[in-house]
């Protein structure tokens, strides 16, 4: 149930760490869940300095800055989602991946698990980046 003002973790390496939802796109109900596209504002940047020193040499800089308005896809949600077979899935946090207007992810790698509902909603690019999906 991601709506206006929800703070989400950003799990890609685009440079954002925490983002805030400002709008849910193309939904009549104003709650986004896994696989929904939302608009976010970057609230906290990720610092790449001491964590991976090799990153700077590879030219990984923050692609987004604090205050940027970006599109994103929800990949994990605290609110449980019911699957077709009756099972429920629930994660401990709300997380998203930043994308550009065309729907391609801005970052190049994801750090943690994503929900399988992305497959149904045709986010195969994000799924292929993810280390695992359940």
């Amino acid at each position, binding site marked *: 149930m991601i709506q206006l003002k929800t703070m989400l973790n950003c799990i890609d390496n685009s440079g954002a760490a925490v983002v805030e939802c400002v709008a849910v796109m193309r939904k009549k109900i104003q709650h986004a869940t896994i696989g929904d596209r939302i608009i976010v504002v970057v609230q906290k940047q990720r610092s790449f300095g001491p964590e991976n020193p090799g990153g700077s040499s590879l030219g990984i800089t923050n692609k987004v800055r604090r205050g940027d308005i970006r599109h994103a896809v929800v990949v994990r949600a605290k609110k449980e989602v019911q699957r077709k077979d009756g*099972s429920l899935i629930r994660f401990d946090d709300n997380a998203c991946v930043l994308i550009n207007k065309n729907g391609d992810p801005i970052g190049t790698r994801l750090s*943690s698990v994503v929900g399988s509902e992305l497959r149904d909603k045709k986010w195969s690019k994000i799924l292929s980046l993810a280390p695992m999906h359940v």
Partner: protein
Amino acid sequence: MSQPVASRFSTCCWRSFFAEARPQRQFRRSMVTIQRGPVQKLEVPSDLPPQLLPQLPERYRPGRNRRDIVIHPSPISEAETCKDPVAHVDKQQLSILDPTGARARLFDKANPDRAKVGDVLLTTFKTGEPVSGVIMSIKGTGPHTSVLLRNQLTTIGMEMSIKVHSPLVQSMEIAQRSPKRKRRARLYYLRKPEHDMGSVQKVVDQYLRQRAMLTGGKPSKQAGSFRSRKGKK
């Protein structure tokens, strides 16, 4: 002359004067309000000449009332024959979903070796995808039984509720029993960081290795799904 009359009858006296006259009204009752007894139905005379019969309305003609009404016996109530239809359907469903009864026995309350909350359960789906976790709660009865598994994947807590008798579930095994009986039926406190069990992947891996040793086969590829999938890429 009129002067003394008016003095004798004041305005209030006029009213009482007319009140005396009022009871005469009840004699003027209309014909409609007079109460009549129930209308007596006249029988059609039996010796009516047959040529007059067509003048009668159809329902008064002789032989009309002698229609015999068939009284059917009431159908046998379904509720009488099947006292507990839900149990019947449940049994039917279980015989389809779980023909051997092994899965039902795993969660049967009477079974001392059943899966309990706090145990680590390894579930494999028909697609080959394993899901493991600590049993937080067992809900429902019969074919509706479901288990809530909790695990940590890439340090992110994840809970999954799985229908035990789902046709998509290939197998369910207990990878580790909880050392002590849990005093709660639902271990929702595992969501709190201080009680969280963390990832159960190590426990599952160890269980799979032991099982492979016991059965003499090589460790199945279920072990460490995370790593194997990463390796494929």
